[in-house]
């Protein structure tokens, strides 16, 4: 982290064409929502005309009031939920997805848990084991391969869950508040580990969170969504270079950006 990077004003960021792009979606965007709306069968609107395009290798976070449809957006991208208007462009064969809970299978040890998705995709056993071992090492769970999930801490369960998704080497990785249930210290540590994984693997990230500092710390861009029906209210560019270091959390520029986001988020909750 250099001093210039910390003080670089947002308007100098070459990535600052995002707003123009997100209105239309682009051909090279690995994931784009184009005027996506979604209604529940009972008529309630969950999402209202959401357009957002992720650039390759970009990390975008979404913050918004509870129940604003942030998670629904991820479910639409993955196909778990169907949108009722607009289009989504995504390669669902190379999509990673982690949930709020680690959703490990309690009757499987860590190793076969990490192998699960590959198993469902029909990878040969030897390859599964090799890749799982690699990913377990990568998330720092070496030595815990033969533990059942009930013997792991919350942070370790989440690491195993990340390893499970990483094993498929996703090109787009979506995170639905994965660290929300963890304590602050574990969460900050996992944020750093996630950035390291992001830089190493080069996936495109879409991250849902309630925490403004977490969103800023991880992302190139932070999107603020309104109350239900969810709309995009604001997009903030984050000018800091990767890799980001823990000291960034205490930099004045970081606090200032968090402050601006906080104002925007309060407005989102109130109007």
């Amino acid at each position, binding site marked *: 982290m250099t001093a210039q990077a910390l003080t670089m004003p947002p308007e100098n960021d070459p990535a600052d064409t995002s707003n123009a792009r997100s209105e239309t979606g682009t051909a090279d965007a690995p994931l784009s929502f184009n005027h996506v709306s979604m209604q529940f069968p009972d008529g309630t609107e969950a999402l209202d005309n959401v357009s957002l395009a992720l650039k390759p290798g970009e990390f975008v976070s979404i913050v918004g009031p509870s129940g604003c449809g942030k998670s629904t957006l991820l479910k639409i991208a*993955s196909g778990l939920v169907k949108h009722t208007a607009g289009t989504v462009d995504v390669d669902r064969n190379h999509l990673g997805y982690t949930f709020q809970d680690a959703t490990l*299978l309690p009757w499987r040890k860590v190793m076969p848990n990490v192998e699960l998705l590959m198993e469902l995709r029909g990878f040969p056993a030897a390859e599964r084991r090799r890749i799982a071992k690699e990913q377990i090492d990568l998330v720092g769970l070496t030595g815990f391969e033969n533990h059942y999930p009930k013997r792991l801490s919350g942070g370790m369960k989440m690491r195993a869950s990340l390893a499970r998704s990483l094993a498929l080497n996703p090109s787009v990785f979506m995170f639905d508040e994965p660290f929300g249930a963890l304590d602050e210290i574990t969460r900050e540590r996992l944020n750093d580990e996630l950035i390291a994984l992001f830089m190493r693997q080069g996936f495109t990230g879409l991250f849902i969170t309630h925490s403004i500092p977490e969103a800023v710390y991880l992302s190139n861009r932070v999107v603020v969504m309104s109350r239900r029906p969810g709309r995009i209210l604001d997009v903030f560019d984050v000018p800091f270079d990767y890799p980001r270091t823990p000291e960034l959390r205490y930099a004045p520029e970081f606090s200032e950006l968090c402050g601006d986001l906080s104002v925007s988020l309060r407005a989102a909750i109130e109007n």
Partner: protein
Amino acid sequence: MTTAPVAKPRTYRAVPLPPPANMLQRFFTTIMPPILLGILLVLLYWWTRAQLEPHRQFLMPDAWSLWTNAFALPEVRAELVDRALVTITIAVVGMCISIPIGIVLGIIMFRFHVMERAFFPYLVALQSIPILAIIPLIQSALGFGFMPKVLIVALFTFFAIPTTLLLGLKSVDRGVIDLFKLQGAGWPVILRKAGFPSAAPALFAGLRISAGLAVIGAIVSEIFFLAGRGGLGQMLINAKIDFKYEQMYAALIASSALSISVYLFFAWLGNKLFSEWHESGAAPT
């Protein structure tokens, strides 16, 4: 103006940790209570017996006559073993019918919500019919052989199996199902790799209930079916007719032992299968 009362602190002294419990203390807190209650029950039995008029004391044989007139006699011991085998066979064959049918029905009800709506009221109805009340009907329809008894056991044990399996399958973590769906897994794969393992502890709770009921059902059916070479239930009735109450007690003890061992078998099997990972299981050491 503030309204909070003025605090009057008093001192709370620290409580030092008690020394760890030694063997003797553990013996008194874990093994002694059931032993003491057992002794109490024996005393109660002895006292009740003492209250009976002497010509009615045959109703509650003492330990010595139970030994000399029943357990010490080789022919009684042989009869107990033979008849216990008959009873357990009826119970096991009955469960061999009710378990697979129950599991299949549980899966069908889980897979097709319509089927759950269709079947569930009748399952509850089946559970509510006093099965004893339809035994005469079963006798009239199917006679006095082996199969009608098996059918009674199957009826006794059926209810707990589809209901506990369905409950278990329905409580599979939504997120886990989503996880499978995201990889394009079809429902047979989801059922095999997520549904069954997840529902197995609930199903085993149902199996333990059914196992106890199976032995009870077998004995009850034998009490109704006195023709042929019967099991422990028939021995109970024969002992009454022959006025051999020590043998009746012997048959009672044997039936209880049978029922408890079937229960313990399923408890042991369940524990062996799930204790390592399930929350209800003992923590591995």
